[in-house]
Each structure stands twice: as C-alpha cells, then as structure tokens.
C-alpha cells in the first residue's frame, strides 16, 4: 500500500434528507429520512477510503451524493477545489470524466439489450471520444479486466456475475477517471470470484493512480483493500482511522461490536474469541435517537456507564474528534480495545 497524496475529494458537513410523504392525493410531507447527517472526510490521491456500515447507515447515499446522482440537502463536496454541489447536469458533464462509479448489482447495472462492447464504448460516445483509438481502447479495456475481447459482441446476461462486475469496472475506467466510487462492488459475488475482482481493483489503483471510495458492509474486505476506513452508523461517521489501527485498536463501541460480530474462517480462533453482542436493531432513520445515535444499542451505555455518564450520551451529540486515541472517534467514552 503506497502512501496517499494530496486530497482530491473534500466532503464537508454533507447532509441528505429524503422527505417521507403521506399516502393519498395530497401527499403531505410527514417527516424526513435522515440518511446522511453531517459527514466530512477527505479522499486523497491514490488512496482507498473505505466507507463501512450496515443497512441504513447512509453509506450508499453518501456515495451517490458525491457524484451528484442525488442532490445534497446541505454541505459541500469539492473535487480539486472545484465545488460540485449545485452544479447543473451540463456543468457536471465534463467532471464525469474525472469521477466515476461502479455499482453493486452486476445484473442490474448493465443494459441487457446492448452488447458488452457497446456498454464499454457508451462513456466514450457520450463524451465524443469514440473514434479509431476509442475502438482500440474498448478492446484494451476488455483485456485489462480479464475478459476475452473477442467476446465483446455478446450480451451481459451471457456472462457470470464476476465477469459482469469486471465489465462494469471497464466501463467506469473508459473515461480515465481520477476518482472511482465503488458501491459494494463485490458483495453480490461469490467468495472465489470476489477475490479476483478485489485484486483487479488493487492493480488498477497501483498502476493508474486512482483514488477509490470503497463502500461496503463487510469489514474483512475493508481490511484488505482500504488505506483508511470510516465507519458509519445511522448517517454519521463514528470512527475514522487508518485500517491497521482500526482493526488493532478500535475505539468506538460500534466498531468494536462490528469487528467482533464478523465470523473468522478459523475454528480455534473463532471459538476463543471475545464477543461483544449489541442489542436490538438499527433504529428508524426517520426519528433517530437524540445525542449519540448508537446509545440505544450500545453495550457500554447499557452495562458500563453510570447514570450521570449516560446523560452526556442522551443529550450531547458526540463530535468526530481525536479523544486521545490518536484517531477521530465520535464517542464520549471512547476507549481502544484489542479484539483480534
């Protein structure tokens, strides 16, 4: 893993709310889904930043908002000092060559009626770059991602899931972007297939100097690909640390619970492991808990804190700052813990 360079993407206080409307003719607004609430981070050149969280954590919404596929409610996203929020689709178009996305579902993300060669040529056509050189490039891209270029006139459904995801990657790379958002790129794939896609992504980054925002729910994948990991819970980042440190000494109770919940493919270690089991389910993002959003499930809140200590959890939103652990963490009582 090479050292990350300058920040290319800067995200500050990003907020995205989706209105919830009543049924019926009038469809009054009756509330908001607080999908993303004040997320800030930098993505550096040649870096993979992992964005990890369970369903409802807002990680996918964050990713899509960065690319202006969703309009943020407030906050700012800038790419190399150019503000992206508020750009019209026309203003955004040249920037699409710099910022690309790979989707989760390799089945739904490729148009079933277009040949694979045309799928990869599509970005070049849109940006008026599909000439002789462009045709050769499509050929090269297919080979790059490990597909036989002679199979270019087949349709997506003739390929396996892993191959389709490679096609999706080739399409995202066609415009030679600098930043690629990877939205759960391997979670729909079988293990034996996903390793190949992960290797491919790492090779691409090393050679082409890409920056990846890697969104996933699987922490073990993160350990493998990310330089830094941001853990999200109910629309907020609760901990952001270099990968090695995050796994060695997680400080937020949620990160700790997450790490201890993932089963290890190692029977002896698995039996001897210390488990932190959190209670219940993720609360509804329509009315998130006050103060610390994790407090309703927090094992520390439930068992270790005194009544007076809990008041802070209920009343004050913990900011994401360094609390003496060396990395930013959003817990009033953060304490590193060794789990692995």
């Amino acid at each position, binding site marked *: 893993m090479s050292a990350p360079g300058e920040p290319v993407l800067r995200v500050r206080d990003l907020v995205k709310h989706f209105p919830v409307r009543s049924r019926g003719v009038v469809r009054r607004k009756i509330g908001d889904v607080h999908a993303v609430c004040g997320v800030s981070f930098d993505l550096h050149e040649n870096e993979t930043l992992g964005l990890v969280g369970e369903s409802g954590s807002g990680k996918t919404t964050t990713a899509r908002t960065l690319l202006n596929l969703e309009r943020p409610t407030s906050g700012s996203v800038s790419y190399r000092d150019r503000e992206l929020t508020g750009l019209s689709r026309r203003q955004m178009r040249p920037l699409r060559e710099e910022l690309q996305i790979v989707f989760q579902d390799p089945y739904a993300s490729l148009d079933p009626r277009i040949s694979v060669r045309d799928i990869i040529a*599509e970005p070049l056509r*849109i940006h008026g770059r599909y000439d002789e050189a462009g045709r050769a490039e499509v050929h090269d891209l297919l080979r790059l991602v490990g597909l036989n270029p002679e199979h270019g006139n087949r349709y997506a459904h003739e390929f396996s899931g892993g191959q389709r995801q490679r096609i999706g990657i080739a399409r995202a790379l066609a415009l030679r972007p600098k930043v690629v958002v990877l939205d759960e790129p391997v979670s729909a794939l079988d293990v034996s297939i996903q390793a190949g896609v992960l290797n491919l992504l790492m090779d691409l980054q090393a050679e082409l100097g890409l920056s990846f925002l890697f969104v996933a729910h699987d922490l073990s994948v993160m350990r493998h690909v990310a330089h830094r990991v941001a853990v999200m819970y109910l629309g907020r980042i609760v901990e952001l640390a270099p990968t090695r440190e995050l796994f060695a000494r997680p400080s937020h109770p949620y990160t700790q619970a997450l790490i201890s919940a993932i089963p290890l493919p190692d029977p002896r270690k698995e039996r001897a492991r210390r488990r932190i089991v959190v209670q219940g389910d993720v609360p509804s993002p329509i009315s998130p808990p006050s103060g610390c959003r994790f407090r309703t499930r927090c094992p520390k809140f439930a068992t270790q804190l005194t009544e007076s200590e809990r008041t802070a959890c209920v009343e004050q939103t913990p900011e994401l700052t360094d609390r003496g652990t060396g990395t930013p963490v959003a817990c009033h009582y953060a304490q590193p813990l060794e789990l692995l």
Partner: protein
Amino acid sequence: MTETTEATGAMDGERPPEEREFTVVERTQAQLVLRRFLRHRAAMISLVIFVLIVLWAFIGPHLWHYSYQKYTPDNSQPPSAKHPFGTNSAGYDSYAQVMRGTQTSLKVAILIALGSTFVGAVWGAVAGFYRGVVDAVMMRISDLVLTLPLLAIALVISSRTGGSWYWIALVIAGLTWAYVSRVVRSTVLSLREKEFVEAARALGASDARIIFRHLLPNSLGPIFVNATILVATGILTETALSFLGFGVQPPDTSLGLLVSQAQTAVDTRPWLFYIPGAFIIAIALTINFIGDGLRDAFDPRQQRVRQ
C-alpha cells in the same frame, strides 16, 4: 459418508476449457424470445395463416383476372369456379373485392398500429422518465384521450375528411395511442430505477440518450405485444366505421364496407356477407393469438430453470 459415483452425462464431448467459461448456454435475449414463440403452437399457426392472408391480399390482385372495379356480366352469382366468392347484384367479382377490402383493412390496421405505437411509446417513455409534474400533465392528457368515445369521435372527424384509408387510420391512431402510452409509462417507471440507468447518468448521458438508447429498447417486449393488439383493434374499428358508412368510401372498398353493403342481402346472397365477415374474424383472431404468443415469449417469468 458413502459416495455414489454416478456416470456424468457425457453428451457434448470435449469442450475446450476456454469455452466452459460461459456457464449459461450462449443465447441472446432475442433468441430466447424467438424460441419461446416458436413453441407457442396457437401463435405459430396464427402467424402462418396471417402471413398467407397478407400475401394473398397484396399479391393476389395482380394475379386474378378480375379487378375489384370491373363489372362482369354475371349478376348475383353464387360461388363458382369462375367467381370463387360469387358476385354481387352489380356484377362485381366478390373474390377481387374481398382481396381489395382485406388489403385496405390491413393497411389501415397496420398504419394505426405503427402510428399509435410510436406516439404512445415516446409519450409514455417521456412521462415515465421525468415523473412529477410532466408525468401528471402528460398522463392526464392520455386519460382524457382514453375517455373519449372512440367510435363517436372517429365518426365526426372522418365524416369531414373524406374516405381515404390513411385519414381513417390517422384518426383512429390519434385516439388509441393513449393505451400504448400507459403501458410504456409503467414499464419505464420500473426500468428507470434500474442501476444501468443510473450508470448512464453517472457517465453524463443526456436525457434523450437515456430514453432512446436505454429505456425504449428495454420496453420493446410490451410495445410489440401492444402493437399486435392494436392491429386487431384497428381492423375492428375500421370495420365498424365503414359499416356505419363513415369509413372507406366506394368505389374503394374494405372488409367493413363489404359487410355493410351486404347487410340487406344476408338471406338472399349470403356469400356476400359471410365471406368478408369470416376474413374479419380470421384476421382479428390470428393477430390476438400472435399477441398472446409474443406476450408469453417476452414474459420475464418464463425464465429457464436457473441453478
């Protein structure tokens, strides 16, 4: 654990490892649809009959020795070798007239299907793609068109435009496109949520490109099915109009007009009434079966067993 080894089905011999890369038998969407259609017996028989009728109606007149406009000395003859469908009281050869009538009716029906499918598909796709206010306004217009009594409006308009077949077709198409627009809109509404549409947007594709390159081609299944149904509707509507005297005007003729002209002769010269009537029924039925076959072939629930 006892293992029963079982001779594996060695049906297709040695395949190079390269080829085994494809776990799905190589087959395009179109091939799958075609296969399913070919297996639909009623649709296949209907298709053959329909093609024969079309060939007969368009090529037949060039080979037959009577023109539909030519008087013959034989008045009110029952079917015979000389006049297979008989003649009417004015001495016209009914065989020539039915051929000409079928031709006109088919032309009308196909123009209706093409016109209303094109307008309806684009209308529905645009409404479904933009949703919101655009959708609301466009769909209210569609609804309005749907509520208009087709026959009454067609009667009023075609009585002012004279009896040429393309005017009649355009008038009917102008009242039936709304059906197509509703079907295409609902298809597009679900398609636009697919990730490949979002992918196109992330690549910077324009709305027009998304609609015409991604959404409409993926709605072809329902569009085809509806187009066939519209052909049948077109035939029947034209027949009704001509029967009421507001469709195709003599000396030209259509199946509807032939039936209408023969209504007083049902008892005395039944061949004049029943033969064009049978053609109307045959065309409408075969097209409905073809539509059924297409619908089954395109139906996504008809996926092959997946493992």
